Each structure stands twice: as structure tokens, then as C-alpha cells.
């Protein structure tokens, strides 16, 4: 017993010394001119100054890692067994000292008892901040079935992730299509399907549960977008179907048999016929409002026989004027991006009103399973396209959401493995040109390797969503859904 007592402090001391020794720069490293290959790829990326540490690991594996990060006279080091994990306070000091500049990252890796010093790479620190929180749904990238679903919020300035609502709390139903009013964390809506079904609108801590299927619309409200006033939500109503391909290059096709665009008045709980685009001759879907609230953007394609013509449906991006005082749209349609050989979807206007970002794909409006899907952007002042090749990859890029300052976007991409959608953050310069996107940093960079969920509908919000998950649960379980009317 006495022996154990003597050994214990020695073991602690040895562990401490080992820790210190491991945190020192290797002195016998062999330098190379090659850049290291790391995951996530943070080489030469532009990041906001308020982002969490960019932990990473070398893709070839290593017995030990050591990294030195320096810029403007500040140098910090980070170490790990097979990855590099940066201490948060030191990272913050480094970024604060390097706003608008670049930091240099020098990586050392140890393999087979030999240290190697890799060529340094740069990380550019923007002096523009990104909205502090990212809200996303974690869901298996399933085909026709969901199982475990949750909407989470992640503090981008740290690694803190909290659930907003989990389907395990509300009967394992499907929770989807969360959207915020201009990135305001206190104004949120989402749907639940199956058990406790309904559309949930959260404003100023109050939760409304709504039944949104009316006699005048073909379905429940589907793909939503808030009006900047918080008084309206435009959504599509869709009859959605899917089928499965037989050949190796394609998996699933999701298509609408019919779809319309409507505007829901949050105050009167009415779907406004005078602000809705309902037509049997056209498919209208994925609407959004301009940041000034004066335009209603949507995707539009001539209706056709489905699924026979699934690969011939091409959507244009259109807009109509919206009068928020009257709750009406004009009948004059302005086609912003006309579908010719390609199809366009997910229109999103930058908060400063200058750019229209959208997704381009060969056909249809649901590009998540289309490898060819890419992000495109048009300058609304000049109506000129902007080169977005720096943002895209050979795999699917689909959903996107702007940060409130219009300097950052989050983009859904399958570039990592072609199946799981992950959120990539991307700088948008003053000229509209994108930087190299970087994967949302995680405390454990291996987390993505083992994660069996996709990040669905990543939405940037300006602060923490403070509605208590148990309040949403109680509303779901105990509240009767109020019937929305069609006026």
C-alpha cells in the first residue's frame, strides 16, 4: 500500500514531463518541400476571425503530430497523437492578432520513429465575422426512410453543439425544413411529419402548432422562407414522389407531381391567395423573399408528365413583386435566370441584396442526389454571373445559406465522400468571388470519419436559439394543431 502511494506521484510527474516533452518542437525533423495532406483541408483557406480552432489530422496517419501556427509575432503550438488539436484560448489570441492577415502553419509528423517537417501552408484570417451559430438537421442520408433525426445548433466560435429538438422526444417522427427569419434565432419555423405532425412557428418564445393543409392548397406547407418583417412565410406546396435508378451512376430521383408557391400570413394564420402562385400549367417551388421584402423569388418550370419526363424538367429562377402592406403579389413575372439546357433551384439573395446564389443541375429541382449540382451566383445589379468554380467540387453542392453580413455562406457539399452532406463555410469577397471553402471545424477532426449523419439545411443564425427543447416537446405532445385557412 505504501509502495503504491510512493509510485503514484512519480507516475503523475512522468506523465506531466511526457506531456511537456511532447509539446516541444521536434529537433531532428527532416524537412520536405511537400505540403502536407490534411483532413479537413485547411490549406490556403480564408476563415472568419471568430471561428473555432481548425483542428485537423494528416490523411496519411502519424504516430504523433506537432504544429506551429504563427503570424504577426504570435506563435502557438498544438500537438496530438495522430491529429492536431489547438487550444481555444491560444487560437483566439492568434486570430485576434492576425485579423485581415495570414497565419502560417507548419506541421511536423512522426512516423516509424522519424519526424518529418512539412512545407508550411497559410490560413487567411478575414476581418469579417461570420454569424455565431449554425443550425442544421442531422439525418441519415437515407433513401425512403428516416430514423434518428434532430435539429441542432452549433456555436461556430467554439465546439459547443446543442439540440433544438430531437425526434426521440416527439415520437421518432420526421422533423424538417427549419428556417429562420433573416438569421434571427428567435424567429423559427419547422415541420413535423407523422406523429405530432404540424408546422411549428416560434416567435419571441411562443410556439404555434399549425395544420397547414387547406382546401385551397395541394399539400401542407413544404419548403419555407421568411419575409424579413417576420409577418409572412412563403412556402411551396408539393406533391412529392421519388423513384430509384437501376444503374450505377444514379441513385434516386425526387420529383413533384404538382407544386405551387404560397404566402402564409403569420399574424392572421391565413394562406393568402392573392400572394400565391397556383397554376396547373407550371411547377413552382423553393420560394424565397429578397432581403428588402419587395420581391418573391421562386423556381418555375412548365408542368409535364411525371415521372416520364423527370429528366426533361428544367426550372427557371423567377421573381414577382410582393407588397407586404397588402399581402399581394404582382402578376408580372421577371425571369432572372432562364432555364435552357440546365435547371436552377434554391434561390437565396445575399442580405445586402446584391447577389442571387442558387443551385444549378441538369434537370429537376431537388439536386441533393445529382453529382453535377453546383452553386452559381449572379450579381443582381449587373445581371452578370460570377465565377463560382472555387466553391464547387466534382460532387454535389446543393443547399446554401448566407451570413447576415453577406461575407460568408455555408454550403452543403458531398465532396468528402459523395454520400454524406457536410457543411462547408466559404468567404465571399467584396467582388462576389468565393474563397476556398473549408469544412466546419470539429474538436475531434476524425469525427466526420465515423459520423453516419448528413448535415441537412445548414442555416447561419446571428445568435443562440434559446427556445428550450422541452417546450417544443410539450407543444408537440400536448397542443392541438390550429387550422390555417386559405383566403
Amino acid at each position: 500500500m505504501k509502495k503504491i502511494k510512493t509510485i503514484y506521484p512519480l507516475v503523475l510527474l512522468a506523465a506531466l514531463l511526457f506531456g511537456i516533452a511532447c509539446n516541444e518542437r521536434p529537433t531532428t525533423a527532416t524537412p520536405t518541400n511537400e505540403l502536407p495532406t490534411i483532413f479537413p483541408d485547411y490549406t490556403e483557406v480564408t476563415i472568419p476571425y471568430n471561428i473555432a480552432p481548425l483542428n485537423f489530422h494528416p490523411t496519411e496517419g502519424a504516430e504523433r503530430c506537432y504544429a506551429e501556427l504563427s503570424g504577426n509575432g504570435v506563435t502557438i503550438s498544438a500537438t496530438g497523437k495522430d491529429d492536431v488539436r489547438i487550444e481555444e484560448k491560444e487560437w483566439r489570441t492568434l486570430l485576434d492578432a492576425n485579423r485581415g492577415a495570414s497565419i502560417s502553419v507548419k506541421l511536423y509528423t512522426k512516423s516509424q520513429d522519424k519526424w518529418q517537417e512539412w512545407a508550411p501552408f497559410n490560413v487567411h484570417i478575414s476581418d469579417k465575422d461570420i454569424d455565431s451559430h449554425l443550425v442544421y438537421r442531422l439525418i441519415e442520408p437515407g433513401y425512403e426512410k428516416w430514423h434518428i433525426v434532430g435539429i441542432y445548433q452549433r456555436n461556430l466560435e467554439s465546439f459547443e453543439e446543442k439540440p433544438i429538438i430531437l425526434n426521440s422526444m416527439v415520437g421518432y417522427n420526421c422533423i424538417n425544413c427549419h428556417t429562420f427569419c433573416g438569421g434571427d434565432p428567435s424567429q423559427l419555423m419547422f415541420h413535423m411529419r407523422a406523429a405530432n405532425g404540424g408546422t411549428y412557428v416560434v416567435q419571441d418564445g411562443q410556439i404555434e402548432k399549425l395544420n397547414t393543409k387547406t382546401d385551397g392548397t395541394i399539400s401542407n406547407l413544404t419548403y419555407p422562407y421568411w419575409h424579413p418583417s417576420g409577418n409572412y412565410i412563403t412556402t411551396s406546396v408539393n406533391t412529392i414522389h421519388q423513384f430509384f435508378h437501376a444503374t450505377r451512376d444514379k441513385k434516386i430521383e425526387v420529383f413533384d407531381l404538382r407544386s405551387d408557391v404560397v404566402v402564409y400570413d403569420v399574424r392572421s394564420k391565413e394562406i393568402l391567395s392573392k400572394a400565391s402562385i397556383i397554376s396547373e400549367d407550371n411547377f413552382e417551388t423553393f420560394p424565397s423573399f429578397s432581403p428588402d421584402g419587395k420581391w418573391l423569388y421562386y423556381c418555375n418550370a412548365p408542368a409535364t408528365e411525371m415521372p416520364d419526363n423527370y429528366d426533361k424538367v428544367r426550372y427557371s429562377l423567377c421573381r414577382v413583386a410582393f407588397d407586404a402592406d397588402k399581402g399581394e403579389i404582382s402578376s408580372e413575372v421577371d425571369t432572372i435566370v432562364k432555364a435552357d439546357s440546365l435547371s436552377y433551384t434554391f434561390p437565396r439573395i445575399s442580405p445586402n441584396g446584391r447577389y442571387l446564389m442558387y443551385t444549378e443541375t441538369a434537370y429537376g429541382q431537388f439536386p441533393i442526389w445529382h453529382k453535377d449540382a453546383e452553386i452559381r451566383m449572379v450579381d443582381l445589379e449587373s445581371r452578370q454571373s460570377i465565377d463560382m468554380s472555387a466553391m464547387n467540387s466534382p460532387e454535389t453542392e446543393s443547399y446554401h445559406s448566407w451570413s447576415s453580413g453577406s461575407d460568408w455562406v455555408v454550403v452543403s457539399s458531398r465532396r468528402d465522400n459523395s454520400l454524406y452532406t457536410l457543411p462547408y463555410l466559404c468567404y465571399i469577397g467584396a467582388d462576389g468571388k468565393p474563397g476556398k471553402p473549408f469544412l466546419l471545424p470539429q474538436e475531434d477532426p476524425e469525427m466526420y470519419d465515423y459520423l453516419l449523419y448528413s448535415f441537412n439545411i445548414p442555416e447561419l443564425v446571428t445568435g443562440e436559439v434559446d427556445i428550450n427543447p422541452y417546450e417544443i416537446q410539450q407543444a408537440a405532445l400536448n397542443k392541438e394543431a390550429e387550422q390555417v385557412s386559405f383566403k
Partner: protein
Amino acid sequence: MKRDNNLIILLLFMLGCGLFVELNFRYWYAFMEQYMMFQTTSDYLVRHLTEPGGMVGYLTDFISMGFYYPLCAALVIALIAGIVSYSFHRFLKACGVERSMLIAVAPATLLLLFPQESIAHMLTLTVAIPLAAAYTAIKNDKIRWSIGFIALTAIYFLAAPANLIFALMVAVYELIAHRRYGVAAAATAWSALLPLLAMNIFYTIPMREAYIGKHIAHPEVAFPTALWVMGAIYPILAVALRLIGNKRFIVSDKWHTRVEYSALAITLIACIIFKVDLMGQPYMYDHLAREGKWEKIVEHSQRYGIRDFDALIYTNLALSHTGRMATDFTRTPQLGLYGLYPRDTKYYIQNILSSEVSWQVGHVNTAQRTAFIGTLGSRRSVQPRMMKRLVETYIVTGEMAVAEKFIKVLESYPRLSAWASSMRPLLNEEVAAATDWVAEKRRLMPVTDNLYDMQNSFPKSVEAIIMDCPENKAALEYLLSFVLMYKDINNFMGYIEPYKGQNLPKLYQEAICVYQATKPDEQILEAYNIDPKIWNRFANYDRNIQMMNAETAYKMYGDTYYYYLQYGATPEPPETNN
């Protein structure tokens, strides 16, 4: 001597438990193993540490890895039953109940009678009951209460709902042995309050999960009554025995012992004989399929018969794997589409079957899709066996990055780690292309897109595969079996037409003979190389059919397609979009 008796009873009970599990439920536990996936990653450990009762789930997954192998489930469950029963006996003794081990082992028979989908509930008892016994061994009140409080709190986080059982046992002990009503009330109240505190401080989870965790029963369905009983019976039995007192109904030691042994033996033998696993056959075939022992499935089904659709699908799949689908057609019950392909592809064994059949016929996309659904749809959202299929299918479709992801995940699962690592070289496209099974699957894959789903559009989906690749033997056999079992000779002739001049199996030749008899065409017999012996035998049957009763016809022609055509019941048409 009495002590020896107790030991013998305990050992006999454990032996009986082991036998029961090995004989009746070995394949059940082997089947459930594939719905758990212990991982060696720190993330997996942390995830379990940060949910109530998570360590029970962690241990369950770890131990269940062994259930794939013979005897492992039997040994583990026998050991658990032994530990729990022994501890309960000690607990009873501490409560002043001087009863033989037979009483103490009685509640553990419920573990045998109500098998659950994992052993998490057994591990929960293995925490609660021995801890309760240990609690009673501490004589100093204050030390006992302090340790009890710490243990109660700790096991909530590590092994909930073991805390609830432990609290009840503590309450029972304090009431019976010490008349400490306050301590009993405090233990019960704390165990009831703790989940409420935890769900507001540490976790965001539903109340059910806060109280009983999500590991001992499927959180998406109602909590099984059997589990309530299994948990509550220990404290209730302790109280009941205390109330009854130590009165013995059989005074003679000799007879008492004899009756005890007899009761134990009768109970265990009755369990072994009467409590059989009704799904034993499909689970056994599932296990044999995982080991690639297709011949054994065929042998077993032909020797013992087939008891349900899932077993029939496995039998047909085994016939396909062994190249006997046509030759053994008349030896297999023909029950229509759902004997070839499962009715609902989203759940458990049917999902596995769907992936297996699709893989066999070359519909790689469906094999992949159903494997994916099987993985995400399973209770823990993992299914290592279907993840293996995902690795295989993604290598076939050339999607190496996602194949690598699943390889990495499987490498963290010790039971399949070596297999996963052996797949790594195939991530190199050149190696994959030069690997026989990959090349073969790629060769047989459809190249012309279609919208036919294997489940809703059978046989069109299989027909489309053959249109692209007529040499896809497995797909052809499935297609022809389908039309022949529904006695659709006209479509059969359409499908067999491209194979004119080839050596066709006897079954197909017999079907062609039938067609020839209904629509005589001198060219047909020659065009299809019909064996004269087969034709002559059919001609004899045709001539004598009016003079034969069914029994004679079966004796003489029971192995022929035309016998099936005439006397076999036509299966119910499938609920499909055909």
C-alpha cells in the same frame, strides 16, 4: 451439506440456462449481434458515457460481438443468471430469509422465458442485484448509507435503470433488516428524482429515456411488460418471502432435496422443450448465409421442411447460390413472390433478405439501398453486416470514398476489423477492376436505366437486368422461377426464347414440353434441344393423365414441372404494381 446443495442447484441451473440458450436461442442471439456494433473509438465511448445507462449499452455491444460464435451466448447468459441468482440468495439471507438456492434462481428463469433483443436488461440486473447484496454486507450504517448513495447516483449514469432496482432492493433491506423507514424512503425518492434532475441539467432526452435509458429495450416501441416484471420481481419476492417466513412445507431434508432437484430439472427441461424460438429456422439460415454455407441451408430445408416465408426466401437464395434453383424447383414449396423476395424491405430480416437477393441477381443499386436502409433503420442505426454490403456495393459502383468511410467504421468494430482492412486494397480502382467478384458484379449490373423497383416491380426489375445481360444466370433463374410458379407458360416461353439451342435444365425443358402440347410446333423440340427422354416421359404423362389419381401421378411424376402445373396450388398474386 445444505451449502453444497445450494451450490449444486446453482451450477445445475447455470448448466440448464446454457443448454437452453444454445439449443433454442443460439441463432436468435447470433442474429441480434448484427444489430449492435461495439467500436474501439473514443467517440463511441464518450457517447455512451454521456447518456444514462450508456455503459450497459457499451458492455452489451462489446459482449454481443461473441454471440456470432457457438456457445458464447449460452456461456454469457448462464454466467449472468448465476451471478444474479447467487447475489439474490445472499441478499435474501441478509434480509433474514433462509431459503434454498432454488428460490433465488426462480426469477432468473424469466430471463430465459422472455428473451429480449439484447442482453442489456441482464447486465442491468448484474449491476443492481450484486450491488444490493454488497450493500447488505456493510455493517456500519453510515458507511453503508454513504456508499449506497454514491452507488445509486453512479449507477444511474452508468447503468440506468439499475438504479431503480438497486434503490428498491436497498429500501427492502433497510425496511426488513433495520426498520429504517427514512432511509428506504430516501433511496426510493432519490432514484426517482435523479432522472428528472439529470434531464434538466445534463441531458436533453425524453422522460422515458431519462428513467430507463435507451439500451434495455427498443426506445421506439412500448416498454415490454416482461422487463418491468423482471426488474420488480427481485424486491417483491424478497418482501413476499420475508412475509411467508422460513417455514418449510417439506420437513424431511432428503425429500426436500429430492423435490428441489426434481422441480429444477422439470422446469429446465420444460423450458428447453416448450420454449422454442419460432423464428429459429430463418435465423439459423441467416447465420449460415453469413458464413456462406448455402449447401447446408438447402440440406436442412429439404430434410426438415420450411416453416416460414423468410426461411423459404433463404432456401431459394441458397438454391440460386448452389446452382440448383431449376433442378430443385419441385422439391421446394412454391408460395409466390414472397418466397423469392420479401414483402417489406424495411425491417430486420426482410431487409437483409432484400439486400441478399438483390445482390445475388445483380441489382447492385437495390442491394446497396436496402443495405443502407437496414443500417439506418436498425435500432442503433448500425448494422455491421449490412455495412459490409455497403462496402462491397460501393466498390462495385466505383464510389471509393464512401466505401473507404464504411471500411474505416468497420475497422473500429473488432469482429469485422480484419475483413474491413482486407477490403482496403480494393479502394484502388485498378485492383478492384482486376478482382474477380468485383468484375463479375460490374459485368452483370444493369447499364440501361429503368424505374423498376425490386419490391414493387418484380419481375420487371429482374427482366430489365436480363435484357442488359442475358448471361446473368441468377437473375434468369429468379425470373423463370417466378413465371413458372405462377404457371405463366406464355411469358416463360418469351423469356426462354434467347436461350434456344442451349442445354436447358430439365425443369425448363418440361415447361417447353407443356407449351408444345398446347401449341404444337414441330420446330420447338428441336430448337430448344429437348431431351427425347424428357419429351417421352411428358408424352406418357399426357396420355395417361386421365387414368391416374393424384397419388399415382405424384409417385410417377411428382418431380416434374407438369405435375406442379396440374396439381400444385397457384400462389396468391403479389401485391405489386405489375
